[in-house]
């Protein structure tokens, strides 16, 4: 059963990684005062683009980059509508969630036509395979048998923490989410930072989506994001708007998911759906327990108008 635990942990990391990208995407968005519930959609388009490009170019890395680009492009719609036109952010997130997946499904169908067998793409190699290590030791697997993207995810968490707590730019960035007018009066380019946040958010969400098709599963199927975008939303609140907290939240969700898969095998008296519920129920319970003592950035969700009277 020791291997059970070991494999459980490996699965946890595997399942948490895409969530980390998506949650960071949401974190950057909300830190600049933009609540973007369109992550799910952004990830969908990123996932497809990543798949296509790595298929065509044969380079998963290129796929990831393309996914990021696609995420940015789609998120620019959100940016323009919510920042420039001051549209209601929640509403627009919804719009993205309906638009982007439809676009993805459409593109896939048009590109591959019909009746083809399920197209498979080469995944990004793990460090272990690159180094040609054969050992099957748990720690080797945990720390080396991961794709570069996993390391990137964790590095990003650290960078984000440093950015928001130690750098001037990060301080200004936070100010925009907290009190844009004040930020503007000391010469911070509020609109600029808000757009920047949308670029970062779009890129990370796109990468998170691309991860699914370039590092996780060899195939693309519609709806493969499977609600991860919304879990990310929860992770940011759960994680108290700090990258560290977000990481913990993602690992928690990943763990719940990994656990639920295994419980299905151990136990067959209970319908499998109950196990599939675990991550969602856990989210609700945890949020209910921690409550919402610390609200997020002050001005999140509110539009910012330059000349207002």
């Amino acid at each position: 059963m020791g291997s059970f635990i070991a494999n459980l942990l490996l699965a946890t990391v595997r399942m948490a990684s895409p969530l980390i990208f998506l949650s960071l995407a949401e974190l950057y968005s909300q830190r600049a005062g933009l609540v973007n519930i369109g992550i799910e959609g952004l990830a969908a388009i990123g996932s497809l683009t990543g798949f296509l490009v790595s298929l065509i170019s044969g380079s998963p890395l290129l796929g990831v980059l393309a996914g990021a680009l696609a995420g940015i492009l789609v998120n620019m719609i959100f940016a323009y509508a919510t920042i420039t036109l001051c549209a209601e952010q929640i509403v627009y997130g919804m719009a993205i969630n309906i638009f982007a997946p439809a676009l993805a499904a459409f593109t896939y169908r048009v590109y591959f036509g019909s009746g083809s067998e399920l197209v498979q793409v080469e995944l990004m190699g793990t460090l272990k395979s690159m180094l040609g290590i054969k050992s099957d030791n748990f720690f080797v697997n945990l720390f080396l048998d991961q794709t570069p993207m996993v390391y990137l995810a964790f590095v990003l968490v650290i960078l984000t923490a440093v950015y928001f707590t130690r750098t001037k730019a990060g301080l200004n960035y936070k100010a925009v989410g907290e009190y844009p007018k004040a930020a503007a009066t000391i010469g911070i380019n509020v609109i600029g930072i808000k757009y920047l946040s949308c670029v970062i958010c779009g890129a990370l969400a796109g990468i998170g989506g691309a991860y699914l098709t370039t590092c996780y599963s060899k195939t693309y199927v519609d709806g493969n994001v499977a609600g991860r975008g919304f879990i990310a939303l929860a992770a940011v609140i759960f994680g108290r708007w700090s990258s560290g907290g977000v990481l913990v939240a993602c690992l928690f969700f990943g763990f719940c998911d990994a656990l639920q898969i295994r419980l299905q095998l151990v136990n067959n008296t209970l319908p499998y759906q109950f196990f599939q519920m675990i991550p969602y129920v856990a989210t609700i319970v945890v949020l209910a327990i921690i409550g919402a003592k610390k609200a997020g950035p002050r001005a999140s969700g509110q539009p910012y108008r330059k000349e207002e009277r």
Partner: protein
Amino acid sequence: MAVGTPQTEVLRMEHITKQFGSVYANRDINFDVRAGEVHTLLGENGAGKSTLMNVLFGLYQPTEGDIYVRGQKVKIESPSQAVKLGIGMVHQHFMLVEAMTVFENIILGDTRSKGIFIDQNARKKEITELSEKYGLDADLDQPITELAVGAQQRVEILKALYRGCDVLVLDEPTAALTDQEAEGLFEIMNKLKGEGKSVIFISHKMREVLRVSDRITILRAGQTVETVNIGEVSGEELANRMIGRELKPSQYIKADSSGETVAVLDHVSYHKNSKHNGLNDISLRVHRGEIVGIAGVDGNGQSQLAMLLTGNIAPEEGSMDLKESKVVRFDPNGFIQENVSHIPEDRNKAGLVGNMSVADNLVLKTTRDKRFSDGNGLHLKKKAIRNYALEMQEKYDIRCSSVDQESRNLSGGNQQKVILARELEASPDLLVAVHPTRGLDIGATRFIHDTVIMQRDLGCGVLLISADFDEILEVSDRILVMFEGRIMGEYSGKNPPIDEISHAMAGK
């Protein structure tokens, strides 16, 4: 930057015009500042002082007109440009990020120091030097939320100086300060002058204007009236020019508090230990037909007092009586049923539903009333509501394009009138009015005072909370002073001991 010798002009604004849609906020304004002087912008609320400064600071773009800094014509498109040109501004509503510390707020948006990381020690050293030079003491690691208003203002000034400004704009800086704190501020201003820096001082309080200014520019209705040197004209003269007509000081007859009590607080406490947002062992009574004025600087527990007296918060200790009965449940609705009316501190946040029409706001509390609906609210009588609204518009002289207009589009004065109409038509036994005239021009202020006095004479007990000392003196029959959540003293409204009171306001 080079310290200019006195008399050298550092800043000039020529023919500045700023339009909002169809409204002229500024019209052909001329204004200049010399090195090492305090130049006051004098004008009542809505005269266009703040707009002019926002134009100077690059927050607004002028519709017409030019700005010259040290003789150079400049186009200020953003605050950062203004900062680069050596212009600093302390806004009336502080621009401090509450979630951050003093230090973080000061270095926020810092462009001068190199590197991507924050070099705590170096920056802190610079700031400490500055604060010592100008006597602006501040604990850098304290979060803003824990600072008193005066301290927050010092942080704002530090912020400006840290960005190396030689023209500092102070927008209504004394509004929230005790006299002592104000004195402190004036000293700082003197130090700044000494350093050859210029201060643009915005105010409508004659006393301090005469005390600190070198030159005074009077604005009225968005236009320059004239610029005068200090000593050329008397206080009254200035006041008259500011308002544009002879101002005869109002003389309200003070009533004596003999009637039955409508509200009694008995040793009430709430968040005792919070100096700025708590109540500490407060006892007071309000009688019918009197106006009890609560004097004191903002943020000494007045807001809590008001919320308590209107049932929005419940006391932690002590008890309260409304009329003859002890209050057991503190909830706003219960108090409203007991004929308690409330003119809230923040008319936009708490007074009005901005996106609803004037008419809706007038009947906000009374839709279940027979006059406005059948079957206890099951069917609203739209017509009746509209007619009532028109009647109120007449009676309270509410200026709006139509009673269907969204109330957020009204001017502050008219918004306040809508609230006044709603609250007074309920013919209350107790009226709690918080800063009822804040930000209103003299005309509206006068109207509101008159109406409140009238209500008093109808037998309503009024509790007036105001940070405007003059207002308190003008209308109160009894004056209580609040400081750090406590009542410092009680004085008669008839020829009150002004010095004593202002000392009390400073906690002495």
